[in-house]
């Protein structure tokens, strides 16, 4: 691979490696955050704390 990319292979590989690291880090952060928020919301709803629009008839505020 290094031979195919010529004299400056290190610069090319560093650029693509850094891009993969940053984009993967961003994607993982967003996915982990999404899972944590869904878990938190499900936990609140399981304890009967719901928004008015999702409450069943006769249910209290909290």
């Amino acid at each position: 691979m290094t031979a195919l990319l010529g004299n400056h292979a290190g610069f090319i590989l560093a650029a693509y490696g850094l891009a993969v690291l940053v984009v993967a880090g961003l994607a993982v952060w967003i996915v982990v955050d999404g899972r944590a928020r869904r878990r938190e919301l499900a936990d609140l709803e399981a304890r009967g704390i719901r928004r008015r629009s999702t409450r069943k008839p006769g249910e209290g505020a909290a």
Partner: protein
Amino acid sequence: MRLMDYANPTRFLGLVATVLPWVAGITAILFAVGFWLVFAVAPADYQQGETVKIMYLHVPCAWLSMFCYMTMAMSAFGTLVWRHPLADVSAKCAAPIGAAFTFLSLATGSLWGKPMWGTWWVWDARLTSVLVLFIMYLGLIALTETIEDPARAAKASAILTLVGVVNIPIIKFSVDWWNTLHQPSSVFRMGGSTIDASMLVPLLVMATAFTFLFLLLHLMSMRNEILRRRIRTLRILEAAGADA
């Protein structure tokens, strides 16, 4: 259903659930084709040799750094003028993604500059104005995180975002207005592109792939932010119930 109906967060979440798998699939296909074109088809440059491969990464990141800021500016306008419920969510979620792509634009530019120009960095108009853009992204993230009330944070960051728009034409035209080491515009310019089709096609495919990647990450992040705000509302309801 009218477009404005999607201003309702619940409807928007439904739309995201439908659209997201398609956007993810298209992004994956575009990157697969893009990497194949870059590493198996695109020729080496007659002057730069294989180092030109950094262009297929650097240019889409630079394009996205500005595209993302314009998305934030339009969202900021929506926040201030129409008080659109999702406009602030959109602006807040675009900032970290824009910061990441601006950082990549600067870093890949340095990695390209060292072998081609003989230096990692020069304080010329293009590089400095992109560095200012990166600092503005960090400032907007800090501002949003510092103010606890989402409505106040939205208004403050929307004003700052709109003030910062002045930097976008400076970035775009800096290579025409001032002397710089950076090459002038070669893709979007009056008189057409100066890049040969054998390099232009892979570049446009990579730019489209990165744009879809931004769309994918932005939609996912907006979904998270809507859930975060629902949780905040429920916590307030819970606290009010405990006090009663």
